[in-house]
């Protein structure tokens, strides 16, 4: 395939990766920003979202869209509730101590993964997309003597993949609106800025924490529900999104939402494009190298603010 269409196709594929990555990474970033908790179990909340989506789709039956819409609502809520419960029962009791929360969330990772293996099993299972038309992209080129529209094979994307890109964009706008325009967002920002002062002003910090942890996990689950009709639900699927989300959050600046979204776009697109033209391994190498460079030259991340 020629360079032009090839590049556009890679960009579109990268945009799907970026969309889901942005949701996952914003969840991680939110939790770190407000609670200062490095959540190693984040990838498992993502995996849980996909697995629950499969269960919901199985139970609902009928037209695939019904099951998918139900999963879109139920999976993030269930995962969010589970995460909030984990916050109240575990993280609160270790007083959000940075080292201990890392160990606790590593433990949580294994517990969730093994419980999923014991109940859901080791198989990869698909959820049917609510709709999935093949959208042919227009392409023009010279044929010997005349200029006309061509249809090179592969020069297309599915309508569902386009939907994922737009849906993720809409959810991210929602998160931004929540943080910037609502009372709960205000409480979160206040807690993020100064926990002790927020407590002194009567903000129920513990409840805010449980909510933030729940929302963070719910966002990861939402990303997984969106991706599961493209890929499949599998108990080991949480590993890669966790690593990529950490890369994104470090580059974007821990706790900075705009930085996270921008970094997710950058990493998602570069992953799509570099793996097409060179190799997927090179894409990962460059992303990790970028993390190293950011940590050396701008430790607070591209959009982060330096803490004293």
């Amino acid at each position, binding site marked *: 395939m020629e360079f032009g269409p090839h590049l556009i196709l890679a960009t579109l594929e990268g945009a799907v990766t970026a969309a889901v990555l942005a949701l996952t990474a914003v969840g991680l970033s939110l939790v770190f920003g407000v609670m200062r908790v490095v959540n190693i179990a984040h990838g498992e909340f993502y995996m849980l979202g996909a697995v629950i989506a499969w269960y919901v789709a199985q139970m609902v039956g009928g037209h695939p869209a019904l099951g998918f819409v139900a999963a879109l609502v139920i999976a993030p809520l269930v995962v969010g509730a589970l995460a909030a419960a984990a916050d109240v029962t575990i993280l609160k009791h270790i007083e959000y101590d940075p080292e201990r929360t890392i160990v606790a969330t590593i433990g949580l990772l294994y517990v969730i993964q093994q419980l999923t293996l014991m109940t859901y099993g080791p198989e990869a299972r698909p959820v049917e997309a609510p709709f999935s038309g093949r959208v042919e992209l227009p392409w023009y080129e010279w044929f010997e003597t005349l200029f006309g529209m061509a249809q090179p094979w592969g020069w297309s994307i599915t309508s569902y993949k386009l939907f994922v890109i737009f849906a993720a964009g809409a959810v991210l706008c929602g998160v931004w609106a929540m943080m910037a325009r609502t009372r709960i967002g205000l409480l979160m920002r206040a807690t993020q800025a100064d926990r002790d002062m927020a407590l002194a002003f009567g903000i129920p910090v513990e409840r805010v924490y449980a909510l933030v942890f729940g929302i963070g996990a719910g966002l990861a689950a939402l990303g997984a529900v969106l991706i599961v009709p493209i890929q499949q639900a599998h108990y080991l699927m949480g590993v890669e999104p966790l690593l990529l989300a950490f890369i994104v959050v470090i580059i974007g600046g821990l706790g900075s939402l705009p930085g996270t979204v921008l970094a997710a776009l950058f990493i998602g697109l570069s992953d799509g494009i570099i793996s097409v033209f060179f190799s*997927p391994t090179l894409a990962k190498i460059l992303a990790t190298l970028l993390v190293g460079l950011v940590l050396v030259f701008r430790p607070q991340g591209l959009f982060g603010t330096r803490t004293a």
Partner: protein
Amino acid sequence: MTKLIKGTSRRGALKTLAGAAAGAASLPLWARYAQAQSSEPIKIGFQQHSTGIGAAYGRWYGRTTEAAVKLINEGGGINGRKIEIIAEDDGTDPKRGAEVVEKFANQHGCDVGFGTLFSHVVIGSAPRAGELKLPYFVVSEGHHVASGMLNRYTLQPGITDVKSQVQAMAPYVSENLGKKVTMIFPDFAFGHDHRDFFTAAIEEQGGEVLEQIAIPPSETSFTKYFPQIPRDTEVLYHVMVGPAVLTFVKELGEFFGDQGPEIFGFIDSLEAVDISSPGLEFLEGTYFWEGMPRYAQEDQSEHEAFYREAVGVDETGASVSDPSDVSTYAHMFGCWETLHIIKAGMEASGYAGPLDRAKLIEAVEAMGDMPESQAHPQGAKRFNGKTHQVFGHQHISRVENGRLVRVHTTSIDDTMYPDEVDYTTQPL
């Protein structure tokens, strides 16, 4: 003063004997069998991919093994002894694979190890089996057994290897589908076997491989690789394994739409996947290699019918109890046949216990032609004792009305190649 030395009195001797008898009665069960070892079950360590990327194969390898063991035990077992399967999950992980082999030999006291499929696990485990002198019967397809990379204790007598499969397929592909081929394969040992041997085989047919697209085994989305397929490709050759296979085939269909080259795939890209899954309609008219045809063919032999029923698979290749649970039919016969070969080998060598392991290896090495039978429902085979590799018939099927219909069967001679190793020269 003279010290009195007590002699052994009759009463004293009786006491000692009574004590020894009581002691023997209290020994653990295993020790009591010391006198009656021949009635103890033969322990076969089953290295099973229950979890990890090989889980679908592990599930069906397990069911096939269970069915074969039931049949053998009902027929009186091996040398009058029952078979006992000791299954251990290796997580489809080479490191855990080696640990499992260690457990078979040292913890469970297994007579042999058996069952491994994924080539990287075989490569990780075989050296340990060789060191422990544990006969290790693999049901993989990698060329590493016959290439001489492993050792005398590793054998592959129940399933053919990639080199012989692709060599036998290449003439059909070049004559019927096209000569300009693009290959897509997983980026590890098994995929590299496909890359190397099919490229050589198609060149021998006067064809050429335009592009080789290697995909990392952990990859979950594939569309971004497909634009590398050159437009003058006549045949797309694909083989993919693991939990992402459905995604792979589906995205392939989305990519080509109603255009695209002829498609020839190894059934590995579709093992345990229902052909009628949404998004796979484009497979209609495409071709697949099958070790054993998933759909019952019109001329299915009585042996295959028996086997199909014994492992609980219906005529579409799905589980009798759950039609959505599709089997790994093209590979799992290897477990059934390997267990029957272990039986034949142990009977030929008069195998009585771990001390006879070397005799067992020599007995299997002495095997040659294996006729089609209940023990070999996939078809006749020819074992090469020097390379420890079996050769057999291969099938090409075409998807017609959502069924895999066999269109070509190769001869055993099509699959043969010159020996690359002689394991019989290695010490036992």
